[in-house]
């Protein structure tokens, strides 16, 4: 169950969870055009250089997510547990959020980004991350970092996990079936149709997203094209 959409209004943003995979993303009002957001040349390593401003921004973004999800599923904002992904993306907070079933009647998971006070999900969110990084012909961040963020954003309503650690890859090989064992690998840079891409593998808590090989292609306007190939054992 992969969903994509971008919305301006915070409370409307999580409507995205309702959209089916393959739906066209909508561009937010006031969205920055390509290249208007400066990439952080230092990439993830600069995560601790922003000081209190970054922390305050992250806290505000967390509150944004809490408010949006709380409104969506009619719980208190305090019931929404938000976990920022510890990766530096200038001006953007990548998050995973969950609500305990004791509060919502069922477990609720949401993933996405907050940028400028608005929430975006899936390929729209990835596109904004790529733009913030300035990712393209210049590989502004390592493939592992791209996979870490894009993998986390794969599904707006379920957590997904890319393989970005070699020990995890090796462990997975030892306990999975032959096809997945043969396939799983660390993220790598690639070029697809002349465009920069990253190939990575991911798993997901979603029933609809089995272990898959994902090729994320970054277009010149930072639009992200995902080619997802499930790897089944039979």
């Amino acid at each position, binding site marked *: 169950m992969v969903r994509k959409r971008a919305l301006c209004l915070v409370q409307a943003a999580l409507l995205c969870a309702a959209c089916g995979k393959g739906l066209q993303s909508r561009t937010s009002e006031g969205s920055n055009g390509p290249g208007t957001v400066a990439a952080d040349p230092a990439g993830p390593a600069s995560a601790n250089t922003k000081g209190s401003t970054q922390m305050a921004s992250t806290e505000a973004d967390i509150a944004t997510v809490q408010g949006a999800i709380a409104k969506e599923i009619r719980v208190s904002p305090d019931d929404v547990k938000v976990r920022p992904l510890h990766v530096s993306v200038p001006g953007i907070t990548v998050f995973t959020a*969950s609500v305990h079933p004791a509060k919502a009647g069922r477990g609720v998971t949401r993933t996405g980004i907050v940028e400028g006070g608005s929430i975006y999900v899936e390929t729209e969110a990835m596109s904004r991350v790529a733009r913030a990084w300035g990712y393209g012909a210049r590989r502004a961040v390592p493939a592992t970092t791209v996979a*870490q963020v894009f993998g986390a954003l794969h599904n707006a309503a379920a957590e997904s996990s890319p393989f970005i650690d070699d020990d995890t890859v090796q462990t997975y090989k030892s306990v*999975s079936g032959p096809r997945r064992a043969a396939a799983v690998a660390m993220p790598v840079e690639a070029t697809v149709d002349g465009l920069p891409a990253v190939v990575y593998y991911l798993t997901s808590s979603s*029933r*609809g997203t*089995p272990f898959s090989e994902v090729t994320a292609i970054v277009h010149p306007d930072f639009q992200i094209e995902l080619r997802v190939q499930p790897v089944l054992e039979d």
Partner: protein
Amino acid sequence: MVGYGRATAALETRSMGGYERTPGGTNLGQTTPGGGAGPGAVGKQTLTEQVTPQAKPDPVKEITDLLSGHAAGGAAAAFDRLKALDEAQQTSVITHLSPALRGKLAHGIQKNAATGDTAHEVLRRCFDATPTGEVDTLCRWTALRFDLAVTSTSDSSGAPWDKRGLRRCWDVLQMLPAAHVADNKDLKSLTRYRSGSVEGWASDDGEAAIGYGSSNNIDTLNETGDFTDAKDPLRGKNMFDATVRHEIGHRVDAGVGGPAYTASDNGGGWKTWDGSHGMAERIVTASGGKISSWSDATEKKAIVACLQGVIDDRVPNEINTRLAALSFVAKHATDAAQQTKLDDIKGDHAVSALRVAFSHQAPWDLPTGGVKLGDRIFQESYDWPQWVSYKQDSRAKKFSRYQFRAPGEWFAEAYATYYQPPGDKGALMKGLDDTTKTWFDAHVDPQHGAGGTTPKSGTKNGTTATSGATPTPTSGAPASAPKGAGGP
């Protein structure tokens, strides 16, 4: 005049003497307003004909009149009238009503007037004869049949039902025991949300939600390996139907003692922890590896605390960096003794298990379930979080891989398997997990395993179904497909 069964007194007073119930039904498209001869009858008539004009019955008009009146109970009377018609007439009447009157009829019928096999059959004909575009009315027919609220999910992912989804739900629900559906106090609503794949969820407040999208061909979409291995009973079965049964199963679980069974060895020996507190200690102990027998108590405490941090923060990708930062191994790059210690820690199966144990890694999807510790698999089943462990050897008799996400999923998948048509209830369990089939017969199914998975026409939730009845496939079936089918 032939009597027509269940017509009420109120109906008879309105029916102007009723009408002949002839085989094949009345041609409702040929109405003759005012009675008497129709067009072309001008000319010679006999005296008798003039004296005793026969008012040709017009059920459409009669039911329209009942529904158009302002008197209370018009819908009930109209439904009673409808029930008195033969099958073809019922379909024709519903077809000829205006959308507004179909809606008025559906919404005007009270649940207590829509019980019993006859009413259920009529409701299905009403459903089948209602056009696809009248979603609200279609939902109401379904709601009446199964005594559920039938709506979109209340959150922002909610999507309107459509006829194809409701029809399949109907076919599935009618073959389940009434005690699990209409008479199930733990099941209050059947809802739909928008999704790109066929899926679902169930909530503690009685909601069974089904997700699917316009691109999903729910009539032909069979499970091909996303959740099952080739030999699993649910492989190749209709995804939508199995999902509906699965979600209903969640709402049946607690009421039939599912939690106790799944805690037993026969049910997987599941243990559940709501939260992650203490999980590192449990995992280290279960591993019985070098960490558990670490000679330095302070260091052991630090290792366990480090692993607990990984668990609490849900960051298996940070295991290496966090372990490497422990003070007594921080110089491992230059200190061989520290490197040995670090290798010992990382070589413990507890650490290996944690690398693939989180819910976003779907460990239940692995053929092994993950890294075995003792005789058990430990995993985070949900991200809020919930942790569980189960006996790995119980996977040998699994119905699907997804069954081994959590004890509730174990039961729901078993439920979906038990009521999978065609044939006897639990037929797919035989020879694979006979103990669980026997337990389902005794504790879950009100008919104790009798009755089969295909109700014969006229049954209520399969309570009088015929054992081993031959199913009627409905894949791609038209709206008028016979009820009682629904198998893949």
